[in-house]
């Protein structure tokens, strides 16, 4: 059962300065409702910029990004997870969630926190949480903002291996439970091998899709071997992915 919206991305042109080479030109990408698409590619290729365009954070481009037919900037707020937790430090964890979804009652906040393993932490300030807990709180905020569309910008970056595994398992469970549409930006092939239905490898300037790889085995049925095989397959893709782990 598909829950999340479909995305239709058509970027005719995007550049950061008038005299700079375009970052995107004639770029197209379709994302099926309820699918998890990993955007892979070397650092600086434009993965995070693409995510910001989809999120409606950056609206300075030619073309159209449609989320279930609506312009990205006019569509409901996505659930966005930044590379850093980016919790508002002056608000409690519960109020950070309410900032994203003002109508949330106390019980709904507790429920959202419990889903990411932070039950009872609503009254804490972000600085009172560990790095891993802050990441989970950021994920909870994204889920209350929009459980149907998750835009994850390197959500595991700078976490240690144990925390990465913990976050990946948490995310896999949430994806199975809610069937959101997910765009997962990463430069790690393993993230895609564990979580994605499809891996899109970006390269060049202007950005183009170098590889579009289906990962058909359902997440729940992926074993250590299949994940390792998919990871190796993605990491072995030609030159543009050379910086992927």
């Amino acid at each position, binding site marked *: 059962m598909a829950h999340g919206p479909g995305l239709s991305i058509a970027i005719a042109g995007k550049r950061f300065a008038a005299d700079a080479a375009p970052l995107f030109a004639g770029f197209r990408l379709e994302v099926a409702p309820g699918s998890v698409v990993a955007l892979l590619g070397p650092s600086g290729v434009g993965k995070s910029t693409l995510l910001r365009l989809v999120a409606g954070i950056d609206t300075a481009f030619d073309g159209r990004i449609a989320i279930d037919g609506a312009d990205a900037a006019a569509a409901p*707020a996505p659930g966005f997870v930044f590379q850093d937790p980016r919790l508002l430090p002056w608000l409690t964890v519960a109020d950070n969630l309410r*900032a994203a979804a003002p109508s949330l009652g106390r019980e709904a906040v507790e429920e959202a926190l419990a889903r990411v393993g932070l039950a009872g932490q609503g009254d804490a300030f972000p*600085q009172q949480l560990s790095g891993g807990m802050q990441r989970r709180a950021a994920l909870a905020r994204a889920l209350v903002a929009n459980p149907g569309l998750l835009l994850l910008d390197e959500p595991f970056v700078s976490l240690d291996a144990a925390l990465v595994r913990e976050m990946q398992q948490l995310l896999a469970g949430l994806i199975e439970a809610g069937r959101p549409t997910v765009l997962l930006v990463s430069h790690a092939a393993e993230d895609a091998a564990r979580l994605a239905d499809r891996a899109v490898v970006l390269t060049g300037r202007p950005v183009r899709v170098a590889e579009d790889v289906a990962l058909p085995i359902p997440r729940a049925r992926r074993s250590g071997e299949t994940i390792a095989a998919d990871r190796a397959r993605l990491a072995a893709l030609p030159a543009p992915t050379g910086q992927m782990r």
Partner: protein
Amino acid sequence: MLSLPLLLIVWQALAMVFANRLFPSPIAVVEQMGTLALEGRLLSDLGKTLLRAGAAFAIAMVLGTALGLVVGRRPRVDRLFSAWLVVGLNLPAIVVAIVLYIWLGLTELALVSAVVVNKLPLVIVTIREGVRSFAPEYEELARALRFDSWRRFRLIFWPQLLPFVLAAARTGLSLIWKIVLVFEVLGSDGGVGYRVSLMFQFFDVAGILAYTASFILVVLAFEYGVLGPLERRALRWRTAPA
């Protein structure tokens, strides 16, 4: 905790060493405060000065915060008016007072306006620096979460601005009441400065210090009774135990 009692002890000791009518002890000053409050015009003068300082403080803070936000957020406006701010910061307070007294007469409006003109540039500059220090990543978060203007102000701008507003309030209060006193000396029909200028003519040092101490007590009460608790409450997230 010991700072203020130590000051009083040193003062008392010096007053005993240099025993002179022109160097009253803190005990004599407290006695004089009581006398002036009960039999004199200390309370009404204090009220007048407080009203003037309070009005000027409120106007300067509200106007300065609004203008500081504008110049902080709009680089073009900042460039256009930055020289005005430098001029404003360096305008001698006494000159502003004299000019406004000439233009508007010896009125409350002239006095309060002169204080506001003196204080305003400092508030604007402090708030502008606060706005410049805003973290752009929170702005990005606000866009991602589709905050409207009010929520952006309440949840993103104001919490980042608050330490600067409190700093401006603190420096503002200490500056404003001194300026008000000088302007009251220059021309008014009452208030602490006016009364101090009269006492000066009689070398009534105990009276002068009684008036000064009274006002300082009010300022301390405001600092520890209002600003301090407000600051602790608003910035409690910084000191929450890890």
